[in-house]
């Protein structure tokens, strides 16, 4: 019996395929069927937001063909980046099941700090930006302190923060009310004009596909070595090629106009970094665990307080960075910066993108997808020359739909055992 076993051949039963109750899907067809199965059980992922985006774009494009012009889309990407960075921070706090309502105020305060330190006090711009982000981190650690040590619900802590930080913003702007950032400076150029060289954009668009392929092949060989089932090479190649193709087409189209803004590049870079941190590091695993079951995470030896603190601090720092970016986009730091709908747009973007308000479920890409939806609505309605009253109503409606989809999907996941 032993003599016949070939060392190179895979054993008949793989380690994770020994239970006969589990259905196995293999190859590309299997991947597609698995996807349909997941969606039907309520594990929607990014599907609703992609469908919603296609709908919104179709409607606006039919009402005004300028909407889909590459010039307008480049503008859209510039606008997305500022609030998008704030939404990325919101994803962090939502992951642990908390909320930060003061991100708008923090972003406004950060832009005021940059304006004051850089323009009025003559600090180097980099140092001013660094100071603004550090102040954001300080505010976040204050929230963490209130939450962890004094048991203050984040909802209330950040609501009072919304007012207090807004007060600080008005205070340091003082009587002038607004500070104009000098045109032609690197910071304003970054927010208004700087785009990637065309060739570089095309090269960067290939990177995700290559990384996908490389990690995919590495995973396959490692899992085969460990006698575990592995995804087929075909499905990985297909995904990588499809991703590369889509990205190249986008770059090609946007390059007909100015090209990809560096600011958007920074935003996407941060999203990818956050995605890695949330899915591939111990910290990210702990964030998901704390959001899912705080007590279980604590008993597993996770320092729950530190995880909450990291979420609040990261959120506030990203909000401050978003404020700096919007100051460079508007070339000014004013009393209006960060007020109005910035707060809700950032939160709405994260939720519309598929990060659950209930904690323990979400991903970094939801900030990217969600903010594109929100900005598309704002941009489309502006092109149609409609007032902001209608914009608020429609954005509110979309947010409501997104939350309804989230709750319904959650209920469906529970009944399908996928919570």
């Amino acid at each position: 019996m032993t003599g016949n076993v070939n060392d190179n051949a895979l054993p008949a039963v793989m380690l994770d395929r020994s239970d006969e109750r589990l259905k196995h899907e293999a190859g590309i067809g299997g991947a597609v069927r698995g996807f349909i199965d997941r969606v039907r059980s309520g594990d929607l992922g990014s599907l609703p937001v992609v469908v919603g985006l296609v709908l919104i774009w179709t409607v606006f494009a039919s009402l005004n063909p300028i909407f889909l012009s590459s010039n307008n889309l480049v503008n859209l990407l510039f606008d997305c980046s500022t609030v998008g960075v704030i939404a990325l921070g919101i994803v962090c706090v939502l992951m642990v099941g908390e909320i930060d309502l003061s991100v708008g105020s923090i972003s406004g305060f950060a832009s005021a700090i940059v304006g004051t330190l850089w323009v009025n006090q003559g600090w180097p711009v980099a140092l001013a930006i660094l100071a603004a982000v550090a102040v954001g981190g300080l505010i976040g650690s204050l929230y963490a302190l209130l939450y962890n040590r004094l048991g203050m619900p984040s909802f209330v802590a950040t609501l009072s923060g919304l007012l207090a930080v807004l007060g600080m913003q008005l205070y340091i702007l003082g009587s002038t009310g607004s500070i104009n950032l000098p045109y032609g400076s690197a910071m304003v150029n970054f927010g208004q004009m700087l785009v990637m060289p065309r060739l570089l954009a095309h090269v960067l668009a290939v990177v995700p596909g290559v990384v996908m392929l490389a990690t995919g092949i590495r995973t396959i060989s490692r899992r085969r070595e460990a006698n575990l089932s592995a995804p087929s090479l075909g499905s990985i190649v297909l995904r990588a090629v499809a991703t590369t193709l889509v990205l190249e087409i986008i770059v090609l189209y946007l390059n007909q106009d100015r090209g990809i803004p560096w600011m958007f590049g920074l935003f996407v870079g941060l999203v990818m970094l956050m995605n890695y941190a949330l899915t591939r590091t111990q910290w990210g695993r702990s964030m998901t665990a704390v959001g899912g079951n705080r007590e279980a995470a604590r008993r597993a030896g996770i320092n729950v307080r530190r995880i909450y603190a990291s979420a609040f601090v990261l959120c506030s720092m990203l909000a401050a960075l978003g404020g700096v970016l919007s100051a460079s986009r508007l070339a000014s730091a004013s009393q209006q910066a960060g007020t109005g709908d910035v707060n809700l747009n950032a939160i709405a973007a994260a939720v519309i993108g598929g990060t659950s308000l209930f904690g323990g479920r979400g991903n970094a890409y939801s900030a990217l997808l969600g903010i594109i939806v929100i900005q598309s609505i704002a941009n489309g309605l502006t092109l149609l020359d409609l007032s902001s009253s209608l914009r608020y109503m429609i954005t509110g409606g979309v947010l409501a739909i997104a939350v309804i989809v989230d709750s319904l999907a959650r209920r469906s996941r529970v009944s399908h055992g996928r919570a």
Partner: protein
Amino acid sequence: MTETVDRKTPAGEMVLSLRGISKSFGAVSALTDIDLDVHAGEVVALVGDNGAGKSTLVKTLAGVHQPTAGTITFRGQPVTMTDPSAALNLGIATVFQDLALCENLDVVANIFLGRELKPMQLDETAMEVRSWTLLNELSARIPSVRIPIASLSGGQRQTVAIARSLLLEPKLILLDEPTAALGVAQTAEVLNLIERVRDRGLGVIMISHNMEDVRAVADRIVVLRLGRNNGVFYPDATNQELVGAITGAVDNSVTRREERRHAEQQLSEGGQL
């Protein structure tokens, strides 16, 4: 008779020894002067009525509570445990009654929660292999380790919780009501699991209200009553002895109920004749 004597002197080395453990919450003494020994390869059942101090004792051993007085000796060394991770690092693993699993994470993530391999670049393959090894050692029946805990049954979740407690190669496992929420077949599986853990040479402390389960797996039965030791029994002890020790009297509501039913039975048998 010799068999009983053998069982009374377990061969394994002493894993845990408590002497004079007391714990009070303000004016309430939850535990008073508790003595307890656990040897390697031995299942000690901890029984007692509600409020007898079982859970407090387990939480003290898990590092959740700190004793007010007394000494804990673990593998020959006196120890103090300031928090749950201290107990874990010593080699005392706890499976809590509510299991403390994250339903939104999959089996592998739960088993390795807080102990992930390569923190900056999680080694999913190695973690999955180790998870399968642990589950297979317990002859567990989990269809896939890549599905979220939410889709597992109560018994399967119990299995995952026990597998997780074995990850750090502990010397002592505390199980708080491992069969409370389980069906007949699942209870049997968990009891098998406990025997397999014992056969690996671990000390096991199990809290249970179910006398049948206790008798089925325990090598010794330690009774607590109102926070004090109230006798040590062996599985061959009669139910009456056990219930008497748990409730503190030979004449109690349980025995009265049994006597009444017994009398009724005799009466009805008499009526049929």
